């Protein structure tokens, strides 16, 4: 990676620019990565569709029309209609809300639970570390989706419970990462300096450790949103997520599977929507990773 240093042109004397900030360097590496930019655009596009769904959607996503059941795509219904005559395009738009909401909220839960635990374990070490990490290991041992299904089953099927289930199931991943990063950071000189001037642990953790372990956590957050969106769609597909008649991409696929022989197009759009959104977050996460850590 070449660091660009402003060079004075021949015959001109210019004051050299100060070295670029870490942020500027990272930003430049990011925008030069076409895949990452594509990811950002896809994510941005779906975010806009989700936010402005009420303005864009041509019809009420839950309005049934018995006269227009399982219609093929047409001008009146861009993506056709489902088994109750509901407009699939409108349902996809509103489904984006459920998917993105689930992605963000679940990861917020994972982050909020996992990161503090991992930081405390890594920072203090010793017995506390052993206890926390044993619990984290036990959670990690149960396959992510099976744990999420079990949690959603016991909590009861609903979108908010699906988000809690996914959030808890993914929290150990954040705890692991936060612990590992904290252990790297805590031996740095600036932490020692903070400690020597008598800063309490809570200040060191929140103001010095957290800020410095944030970049890898950010990468993990982006990739985790991708996983959470697939997981929410999976739970919806199994009937453990968003409940009818509210639209979600997973439950739309479940309905489409039931009428696969009669209306095959119904199964295409929700899947493409999930695929593109997840791809967007994965590309974005990979791009952030490369931009923040150019060594790899």
């Amino acid at each position, binding site marked *: 990676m070449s660091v660009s240093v402003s060079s004075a042109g021949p015959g001109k004397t210019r004051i050299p620019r100060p070295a670029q900030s870490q942020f500027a360097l990272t930003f430049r590496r990011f925008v030069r990565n076409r*895949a990452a930019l594509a990811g950002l655009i896809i994510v941005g596009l779906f975010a806009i569709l989700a936010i402005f769904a009420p303005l864009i959607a041509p019809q009420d996503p839950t309005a049934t029309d018995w006269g227009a059941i399982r219609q093929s795509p047409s001008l009146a219904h861009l993506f056709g209609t489902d088994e109750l005559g509901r407009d699939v395009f409108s349902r996809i738009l509103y489904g984006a809300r459920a998917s993105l909401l689930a992605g963000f909220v679940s990861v917020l839960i994972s982050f909020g639970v996992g990161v503090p635990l991992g930081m405390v374990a890594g920072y203090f070490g010793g017995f506390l570390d052993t206890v926390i990490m*044993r*619990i984290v*290991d*036990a*959670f990690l*041992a*149960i*396959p*992510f*989706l*099976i*744990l999420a*299904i*079990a*949690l959603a*089953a*016991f*909590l*009861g099927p609903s979108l908010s419970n699906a988000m809690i289930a996914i959030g808890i199931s993914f929290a150990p991943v954040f705890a692991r990462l936060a612990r590992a990063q904290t252990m790297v950071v805590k031996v740095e000189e600036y932490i020692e300096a903070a400690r020597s001037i008598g800063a309490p642990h809570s200040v060191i953790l929140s103001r010095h450790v957290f800020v410095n372990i944030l970049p890898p956590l950010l990468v993990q957050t982006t990739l985790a949103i*991708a996983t959470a969106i*697939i997981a929410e*769609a*999976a739970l919806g*597909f*199994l*009937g*453990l997520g968003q409940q009818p008649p509210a639209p979600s991409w997973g439950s739309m*696929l479940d309905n*489409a*599977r039931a009428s*696969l*022989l009669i209306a*095959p197009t119904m*199964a*295409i759009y*929700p*899947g493409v929507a*999930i*695929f593109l959104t*997840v*791809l967007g977050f*994965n*590309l974005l996460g*990979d791009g952030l990773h490369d931009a923040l850590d150019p060594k790899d």
Partner: protein
Amino acid sequence: MLRFLANRVLVAIPTLVLISIIVFSLQQLLPGDPALIIGGGEASPEVIAAIREEYGFNDPLVIQYFHWIGDIFRGDFGVSYRTRQPIGPMILDKIPVTVTLGAAAMLFSLVIGIPLGILAALGKGKGWDHAVTVFAMSGISIPNFWLGIMLILLFAVKLRWLPAGGFVPFTEDPIGCLRSIAMPSVVLGTALAAAMMRHTRSAMLNILQQDYVRTARSKGLAERVVIVRHAFLNALVPIITLATLQFGTLLAGAVLTEQVFSIPGLGKMVVDSVFNREYQAVQAVTLLSGVAFVAMNLLADILYFWANPKLRANR
């Protein structure tokens, strides 16, 4: 070796105990009285009381836990409340189905993932590498249940080459078995193949930079020998470890794959149990998957130890 093994087993024990506590605690999440939920809305007070007695809901939690775990150690996972069938044998019936599917998916992912990963590493930065990277990224991002539906649409509905669902045991009809798991194993194996591809690529890239590869090249060995004997065999260690660790992903993916293709395995059993309110069965499968994961981890450690002469020398 024995000391190493004993050490790993000892470390696994607290994890196993904690897994069992987590799985047991799931029951506490049920909103309201579990007996009422198991019995359903129409159950009479006598039935509810009977359920309480049978499941031991009247006992303190710690006692309930020890009863539960004690029964499991005796192989008793409880009785299905609906069919009165013991859950243990039900699970035993499903295991071969899911294992067949999982093994086929693993095979698919190895056959696709490893060669493509090697090719991508050898042509780093070229068109081929980009194509493989795009393929891998798509494989990770595609929801496997949707991929399954699309394959059914193409190969079962349109072309009529393969059955749309169901499962034929290998012992009954090998050809029928292969036909029935062809699509499901591709669906289950795709994300795994993508992961395998990415890991093989980075493991190969790492090894191709090592001094011993340079030495092998400089002493005039054929490129094919360098790549196969020196680079690939060494890259195999992290690849094998990864494959073992993907077990959890495979099991979780099986839940959705089995649902899409109506395959009567453990995954479908979990989902059916959820909707039949057979919470004990959900707990049993969750517990087993956690225990199996710990066992696979142990196996990965042993494989790693066995494949790495440096570790063997230091024991």
